[in-house]
């Protein structure tokens, strides 16, 4: 399990680095989607089913599409950019890499178990974490309202 985690972590880090280094924004977005998928695989490899599913469905699916749409909205001049923050970005990826790699190296016991199973998350969500769960719906509601208003402003 540890070796699998290490392989996936390296893939995630390399694609995260490519997000910064690639000249084309579309390529950056695709690498970002790839690294989202890798993080999902990391979650799955430690037995966190629900988080893995969320990561793949929401991040690689929905957020990835959003990233590509963002590029779609920007004018053509912005699409290949001179990266001024490249080096600080590399430092950031290094820190992130430490945060990802350190647990996967330092884990000595077998991770997994049943804590991350979707049923157990569901049981927690509908009992102890009920109020945070209902608050999520309000956060999502605010996202709908925000999107409605932001785009309407353009119409007037």
């Amino acid at each position, binding site marked *: *399990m540890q*070796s*699998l985690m290490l392989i996936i972590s390296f893939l995630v880090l390399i694609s995260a680095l490519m997000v910064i280094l690639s000249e084309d924004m579309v390529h950056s977005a695709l690498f970002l989607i790839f690294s989202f998928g890798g993080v999902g695989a990391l979650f799955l490899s430690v037995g966190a089913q*629900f988080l893995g*599913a*969320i990561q793949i*469905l*929401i991040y690689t*699916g*929905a*957020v990835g*599409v*959003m990233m590509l*749409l963002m590029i*779609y*909205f*920007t*004018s*053509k001049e912005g*699409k290949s950019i001179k990266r001024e923050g490249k080096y600080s970005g590399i430092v950031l990826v290094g820190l992130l890499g430490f945060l990802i790699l350190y647990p996967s190296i330092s884990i000595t016991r077998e991770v997994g178990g049943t804590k991350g199973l*979707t*049923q157990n*998350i*569901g*049981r927690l*969500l*509908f*009992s102890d974490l*009920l109020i945070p*769960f*209902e608050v*999520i*719906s*309000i956060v*999502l*509601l605010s*996202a*709908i*309202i*925000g*999107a*409605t208003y*932001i*785009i*309407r402003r*353009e*119409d007037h």
Partner: protein
Amino acid sequence: MGWITLISSWLPPLLFGVAGAAICIILMMPGKFIRPNNPNPNKNIPYECASKPTMEAVGQRSVKYFRYAILFVVFDVEVIFLYAWALIAEEIGLIGFIELSFFILVLLLGLAFAWKKRALEWG
């Protein structure tokens, strides 16, 4: 020992991936051998109903698409929580159903709001 359990626990997704890739390759390969090969620079331009493209395909588009993207993300997140509920629906019974109904009701309010503000229309 570690590798055997690792591979056996990941066998179904591995088979899924291998089968998916194999189907793609099997479907693409016969065409590669059968079809005539006449490269032509005109074949590389984007298809625009046979007329020459008037501008680059990449350019600025209306931000109105963003509305659909946001709404998609919101309801995508909602569906994820439905999975968590569906697996324990029998166990937690009516109370869980009421809790989930409240969750969905709040989001339905948002949908009704967006609908009323004509956010779902293209105009």
